[in-house]
């Protein structure tokens, strides 16, 4: 069993119009820039995929990555906790023009909904957002004297994830704080595509050091010298 895919283009080839895609990363840490840009290249060439729903903590920054996807019109809806950034113009312009939908979710609830999607838990109760406008219309109930809101799982058709080391089975490690949403999104997507800085043979990762077990991963592609979104933004890179 070898889940390695030779090229970024092949890795993202199967994502259709209208797909729900979870994209890892918190700010620039963990953003799978090369996978995103391969998807943008495909859209430029074929006009597809479009009408995507993208799940990420943020809604893109500057003119690269998710912001570039939004800018060129691939994204119909964002599900995120914080659609702002140091340079939020891509999302902000589309949103204020009514050209993109937003489902705003508190960050911890977003993480927990994604985990629930991966863990087969269709709904859970949380104190977060009780009494706020983000809880409107949701069932509420009191537990141990505290009011809680019921939230549903969140799943995706695809996940695009940046890892540090992967093995052929899809076992993953992450670098520093770029772990963030990666292990959760790997669980919650029907088809998880990972870019890794290095791909090693099975046994190349200590079984106790595996953060994401390979069963949650469908495809790995090596990007030996990955770009870092924050560094690119500071360097003024644009991909639109």
């Amino acid at each position: 069993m070898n889940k390695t895919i030779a090229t970024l283009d092949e890795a993202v080839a199967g994502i259709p119009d209208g797909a729900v895609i979870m994209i890892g990363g918190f700010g620039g840490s963990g953003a799978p820039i090369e996978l995103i840009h391969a998807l943008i290249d495909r859209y430029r060439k074929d006009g597809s995929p479009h009408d995507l729903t993208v799940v990420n903590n943020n809604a893109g920054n500057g003119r690269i990555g998710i912001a570039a996807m939004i800018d060129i019109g691939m994204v119909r809806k964002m599900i995120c906790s914080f659609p702002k950034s140091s340079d939020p113009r891509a999302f902000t312009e589309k949103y204020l023009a009514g050209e993109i939908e937003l489902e705003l979710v508190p960050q911890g609830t977003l993480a927990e909904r994604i985990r629930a999607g991966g863990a087969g838990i269709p709904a859970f109760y949380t104190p977060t957002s009780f009494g706020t406008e983000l809880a409107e219309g949701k069932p509420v109930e009191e537990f141990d004297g505290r009011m809680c809101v019921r939230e549903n799982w969140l799943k995706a058709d695809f996940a695009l994830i940046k890892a540090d080391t992967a093995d052929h089975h899809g076992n993953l490690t992450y670098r520093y704080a770029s772990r963030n949403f990666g292990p959760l999104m790997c669980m919650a997507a029907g088809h998880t595509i990972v870019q890794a800085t290095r791909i090693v043979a099975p046994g190349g990762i200590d079984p106790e050091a595996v953060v994401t077990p390979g069963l949650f991963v469908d495809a790995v592609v090596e990007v030996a010298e990955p770009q870092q979104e924050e560094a690119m933004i500071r360097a003024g890179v644009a991909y639109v």
Partner: protein
Amino acid sequence: MSMKLTNAQIAWRAAQDIEDGAYVNLGIGFPEMVAKFQAPGRHVTYHTENGVLGFGDAPPEGEEDWDLINAGKKAITLKPGASFFHHADSFAMVRGGHLDVAILGALQVAQNGDLANWRVGSKGVPAVGGAMDLVHGAKRVAVITEHVTKDGKFKLVDECTFPLTGVNCITRVYTSLAVVDISDSRFVLREKLPGMSLEELQSFTGAPLHVEGDVGELEVPEV
């Protein structure tokens, strides 16, 4: 019944349906035997509820490390690419639909897919383990079992009389006499022992066996 498959042969038959690349959980006891008959050339990754993916055979006697066990508390070894994780992540794999196949033992399987496999009544000490979790989530949940009990009672039944493990959860049953699918709340016969008539097989079965298209011959080597 004079002719029937041995347990090893039932396990062999079940093993042939496990596809290359599959992630598989084998229930404690008899189902563990399925791993012995993994089809050559196929890569199968075994999951155990207590937090190991990618384990291999038992170590030689005397070389056990009792911190490295499976859900049946038997010593195991690791294959390259194995991983450890905690119990909540382990059952996220189960419940979240990430296993391709789970194979379990049965006391009774009903024609609607209900399974009873954890206790026979209300006496004694009840113990459920991970059975109620395993029947939900794996893409395919199959049972391996003798076709009837030692004293000749039906195990494939119209309705379970023992306490349920799960409802509508089993899709295929490998028995000592046949391979039976569960489809639209009916038993559908897929394979039967070559020497046994449908009528005879039906007489050992507690609910109607339906036939859709060809019934294959259940041919299993000596193993």
